[in-house]
């Protein structure tokens, strides 16, 4: 097992077993003296023998090290929500009977026994919700061969980054106008792709292999096949972290991050350039679009720093211009609860960006019996409907996602053909 070595301090003291034996011995001796019964000295004898043998300095007794080297190995410092992971612990000193006790940190759920005997131990755990989590600590308990003294040491366990579980998304929304860059999406302009676009008359310079012989025979003139150019697109994922509503685990921010992770993976698999903006109080955290598998982890690391907390004096700002390349498709994951964020979307749309909103609001205010509460709830519903209606009127598709179904389902009407954006 590979892992960093920690030097931990060991505190030694009599064990509970030793304290019990001492109680038996003292009670036996005291009662023997008080009642003048020698047989009670005999009752104290086995306990006294054991305690006497364990006295410090007796031959054959292992010394008590003040410090011990403990190796801590983590299978992976990055995992997804609900994924099983393990931490390995080992101590080099094998003279003692060793017991490990896991004290899991907040947000970490043990998936195996939390107490293990032996010089090495493996504790399995899961993290049910995304975020940076401290695994907690492990208590190392050492016993001498007679189990009369015990040494205790605390081993601090490392932290893990728990990534949001990416939503299932296999299809992609593709813009009708794509930048002039090689990729995998069939564009509307002819080019050197593999997707058939049409047939036209042969002109000198055309490749001979492109000649469409059936059409040429039918028309009496040479015809060639034309193909669609293959282009890539820029995708900017916007995660609205200004408001986090709903039960933990399925809150709006949870769904937003899972959806954004799924979309990032789907578009990066399609050789698109993907960036992310986490929109939160006090400014946005963003990552410029780029390609590749490494970009996926960079995007998730950026998203992990999303903070839904509100701080006094923090302001709302416009989205960073550098994070939004011209002609990019902006996919927004938001509960659309904050009017200022909606205004920011409207501003982006007016700047000519192709916008697509995934609504991740899955909770409503609890029903109450009073008239004013019911009226407030109704007004809130109408306001939400108005926000979505206004965005659709601007030409921004808004789809609702419940977090349970694959993201392909709500996106289906927009993935069958290219998304036309009117500028």
């Amino acid at each position, binding site marked *: 097992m590979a892992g960093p070595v920690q030097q931990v301090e060991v505190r030694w003291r009599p064990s*509970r077993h030793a*304290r*019990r034996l001492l109680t038996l011995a003292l009670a036996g001796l005291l009662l023997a003296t008080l009642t003048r019964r*020698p047989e009670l000295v005999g*009752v104290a004898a086995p*306990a006294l023998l*054991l*305690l006497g043998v364990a006295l410090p300095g007796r031959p054959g007794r292992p010394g008590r090290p003040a410090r011990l080297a403990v190796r801590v190995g983590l299978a992976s410092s990055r995992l997804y929500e609900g994924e099983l992971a393990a931490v390995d612990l080992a101590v080099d000193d094998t003279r003692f009977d060793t017991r490990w006790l896991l004290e899991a940190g907040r947000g970490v759920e043990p998936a195996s026994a939390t107490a293990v005997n032996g010089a090495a131990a493996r504790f399995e755990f899961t993290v049910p919700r995304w975020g940076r989590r401290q695994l907690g600590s492990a208590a190392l308990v050492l*016993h001498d061969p007679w189990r009369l003294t015990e040494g205790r040491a605390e081993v601090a366990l490392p932290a893990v980054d728990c990534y949001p579980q990416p939503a299932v998304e296999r299809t992609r929304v593709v813009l009708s106008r794509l930048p002039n860059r090689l990729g995998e999406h069939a564009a509307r302009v002819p080019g050197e792709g593999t997707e058939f676009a049409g047939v036209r008359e042969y002109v000198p310079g055309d490749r001979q292999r492109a000649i469409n012989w059936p059409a040429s025979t039918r028309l009496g003139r040479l015809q060639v096949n034309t193909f669609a150019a293959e282009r890539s697109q820029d995708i900017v994922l916007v995660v609205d972290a200004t408001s986090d509503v709903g039960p933990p685990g399925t809150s709006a921010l949870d769904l937003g991050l899972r959806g954004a992770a799924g979309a990032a993976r789907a578009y990066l698999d399609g050789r698109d350039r993907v960036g992310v903006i986490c929109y939160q109080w006090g400014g946005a955290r963003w990552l410029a679009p780029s390609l590749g598998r490494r970009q996926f982890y960079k995007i998730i690391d950026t998203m992990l720093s999303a903070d839904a907390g509100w701080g006094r004096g923090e302001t709302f700002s416009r989205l960073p211009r550098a994070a939004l390349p011209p002609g990019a498709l902006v996919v927004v994951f938001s509960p659309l609860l904050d009017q200022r964020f909606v205004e920011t979307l409207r501003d982006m749309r007016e700047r000519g960006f192709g916008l697509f909103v995934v609504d991740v609001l899955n909770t409503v205010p609890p029903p109450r019996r009073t008239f004013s509460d019911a009226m407030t709830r109704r007004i809130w519903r109408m306001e939400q409907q108005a926000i979505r209606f206004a965005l659709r009127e601007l030409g921004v598709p808004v789809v609702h996602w419940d977090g349970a179904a694959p993201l392909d389902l709500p996106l289906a009407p927009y993935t069958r053909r290219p998304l036309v954006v009117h500028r």
Partner: protein
Amino acid sequence: MSALRVLTAAAPRLAAVLLGAACVAWTAVPPRHTGLATLALVVSIIAVVAGALRLALADVPQPEEGFFPSAPVRTWLTFLAVLRGLPWEEIAVVALLWLEVQHPARPWHTAALGFALVAYLLAVHIAESGAPAGRLLRRQATLLLAGACLLALGAGFAMLPAAGPGAGSALLRVLAAAAVVAAAALVLPGRD
């Protein structure tokens, strides 16, 4: 297979409970109806039962403390704190020895009780620490054998006729037994 595993895990706890009950029964018979004896019997029964419950609930995790726990949760937390905070085995040992001295002198009976008490404490330790019982008992076999011999020796000392009447001669016998035990504890090598 799983039933066998559960039985293996529960065996030390069951052994501890049975030994505790045996100690109480062994000491209580014949019943003494004096105030102190009854009190010692009640205390020892409570302590053995509480110790058994502590072992049985050892795997139950401590609930996280919230800001405003409900009454049942508060009661459960208090119960667990009492169960895990008090030294029930020590209380049981002292109460049982006190109950034993309430009876008239019976050296071999007391010697058997001493051995049962040591076995009870070992069983409790094995049950709560999960230590491998076979290895632990093998390591301590010599000492336990010597302890049994000393127990018998103590009972023998009690059965020897006193050199003369009076408390001084009885105390001398106690001191002689204690000296033998001390000498044995110092002489026995502390090998693994």
